């Protein structure tokens, strides 16, 4: 962990209050393109998300929403600014510490499912538990339980190529759920599905939200974003609008 300087302890004072699970404070992501040309993918984004919220992040391609998603998912660190996730000041962490946070605090659901092709559904769901070092028996129980939550218990020994798109995405959701993350981060979760299956998946997210999970949805489709209770519009690396619906 970074050594704590005076400035750091000042930041400590700003630890977000209990209900806030995500606090983004002036996040910048700048890429050096050589010869002193800098591209700002994000220029000063700030927002708070409370525990139990269902938030959609919307924006056209190139708006910086992918970059924001990577930062929120702890796959990347901001060039400038602070990001708290469930009390951890994530923006200061090293690679391995970020891996730890991804493992414990974040459940990813991707557009392309990102399941391991050679592993069964069950093993795919087990993966996060393996990297948190859980013993085999306990792991199996939890993975099965998680698959049961998405109604896939009877197909758990099938490999991804033996499952339909919707089923694959449900496996991915089960995998995201298995470590009881603080937030679920879904990146265009219906992008590769037909609209009926997409609705089914959105139904699963809806139920998860009702059960108290915090969900962050990244999408460019208004229909999908409409399922959320709050929409953050991103454009040109800035927050354009932050609206609450319903």
């Amino acid at each position, binding site marked *: 962990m970074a050594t704590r300087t005076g400035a750091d302890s000042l930041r400590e004072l700003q630890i977000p209050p*209990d209900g806030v699970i995500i606090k983004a404070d002036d996040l910048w992501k700048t890429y050096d393109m050589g010869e002193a040309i800098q591209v700002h993918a994000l220029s000063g984004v700030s927002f708070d998300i409370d525990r139990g919220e269902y938030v959609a992040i919307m924006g056209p391609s190139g708006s910086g929403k992918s970059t924001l998603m990577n930062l929120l998912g702890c796959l990347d660190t901001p060039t400038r600014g602070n990001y708290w996730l469930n*009390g951890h000041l994530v923006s200061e962490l090293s690679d391995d510490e970020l*891996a*730890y946070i*991804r493992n414990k605090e974040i459940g*990813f659901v991707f557009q392309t499912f990102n399941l391991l092709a050679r592993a069964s559904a069950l093993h795919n769901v087990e*993966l996060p538990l393996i990297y948190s070092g859980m013993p085999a028996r306990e792991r199996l129980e939890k993975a099965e339980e998680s698959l049961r939550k998405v109604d896939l218990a009877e197909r758990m020994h099938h490999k991804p190529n033996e499952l339909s798109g919707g089923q694959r995405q449900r496996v991915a959701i089960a995998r995201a759920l298995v470590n009881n993350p603080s937030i679920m981060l879904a990146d265009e979760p219906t992008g590769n599905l037909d609209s009926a299956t997409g609705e089914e998946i959105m139904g699963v997210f809806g139920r998860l939200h009702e059960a*108290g999970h915090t969900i962050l949805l990244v999408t460019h489709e208004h229909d999908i974003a409409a399922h959320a209770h709050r929409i953050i519009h991103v454009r040109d690396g800035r927050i354009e609008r932050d609206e609450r619906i319903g």
Partner: protein
Amino acid sequence: MLIASSTFATAASNETKESARRNSKVENRRARFEFPVSSFEPLMASFDQTAAFPRTGAIQSATGAGAWVTIREAFWIAVEALRAHKLRTFLTLLGVVIATATLIVVMSLINGMNLYIADHIANLGANVFIVHRYQWAQGYEAWLKARRRNKPILIEEFEYLRDNLKDYRNIGAEAEIQNINTYARFQSHTVYFVDIAGVTPNMIDIGMQKVESGRYITQPDYDHESLVCFIGQDLVNSFFPNVDPLNKEVLVDGIPFRVVGVAEKIGSTFGESQDNFVQIPLTTYQKFFSPRPSLEVNVQAWDAEQMMRLEDQTRALLRARRHVPYREDDTFGINASDTIMQTWHQITGAVFGVTIGIVAVFMLVGGIVIMNIMLASVTERTHEIGIRKSLGARRRDILMQFVIEASVMAGIGGGMGLLAAVLVSELVNLIVGPGFFNASIPVSAILVGLVLSTGVGLFFGIYPASQAAKLDPIEALRTEN
């Protein structure tokens, strides 16, 4: 990496109390998330978040036993990955297989030869050394030089040693005919290439020979230059298959000898029977075959420690008698079990050294092939690495995964090499036959082979694995295969 993550774990556990306090509040808040009873009831129950955020437990499990879990996972990933590409794996491993097989075969051959030499050649008898014209089992060059310089051990020198050596247990002499066109005849049966040796009567106490029936050459036989002989089992089988050989008369190179004793069967060395011999008194030998024979003087000491002193004494006495100048080499050889084994080990050591060199080259090539295929494998599986990283795999987890895969792969190669070595040494034993030495694989060879091959995999796996571990998760996820 280890240090970083453990400090992180401590830092995290400092936060535990804090988050526990927060959690209790969260639970109070969650009371608001009551949902109406619905058909989802069981599903909803499993979604219930009261059991969520078990943060204390989760942080504890990140240390200690966790490493073992990920290592086991890495092991199974490796086995799965190798099973998915059987032919590729086999071809990749060929270098390691050949290297391991070569190493183990050579070690087993040397081991077999060692046992054989110790058993058949260096087995001179208990605490016995032999003074002879040549030092045995030395290099060809040294032998050529010795052939020019060294002189035979003569009867006078034997007698001189017998009279001047102090406190030996026994001293005997033996002379063997050099001409190979020898024969022995009984009635119409003839045996060729018989070893004819003149001996002193006490040789039976010194050498490894034993009397099966009758007696050995005695002092009166020796003193009276009697025409008596002591024969080996090969002659008994040829001449007297159903008859008692004792007191029969045998022609040895045309001279009639009376059989007084039969030796126990010895067996063969390097495929040559050791039982095809006739022994007669040394005096008789001098009279009929060679008046001034080249002798093998057998000196027996009381114990191993005294043997060293006797060897030194013998050397000093003979050098003095032969006027060998100071600083010049002996003009005779003193042969003992340990010196024979020592020279033998020098020879096998050279062979082994060459083998090590060859094996090292094979292993290097094999290792580079493994590294190459692992680099390809990392590129192929970039997306998978991205997925694993997004799910919380740390650098060292990915590193471990690929290093273990390379090691398991090379270890399997080692195993196949071991199998090949077993087959080869069995084949050698089959061809050479049971009369010759047996190639036997020593446990040390198995261990060295397996450990070495696994180590090669580990070493050459490090670079590809570190390439994999370094991958940026975002880039890796974006890569499609």
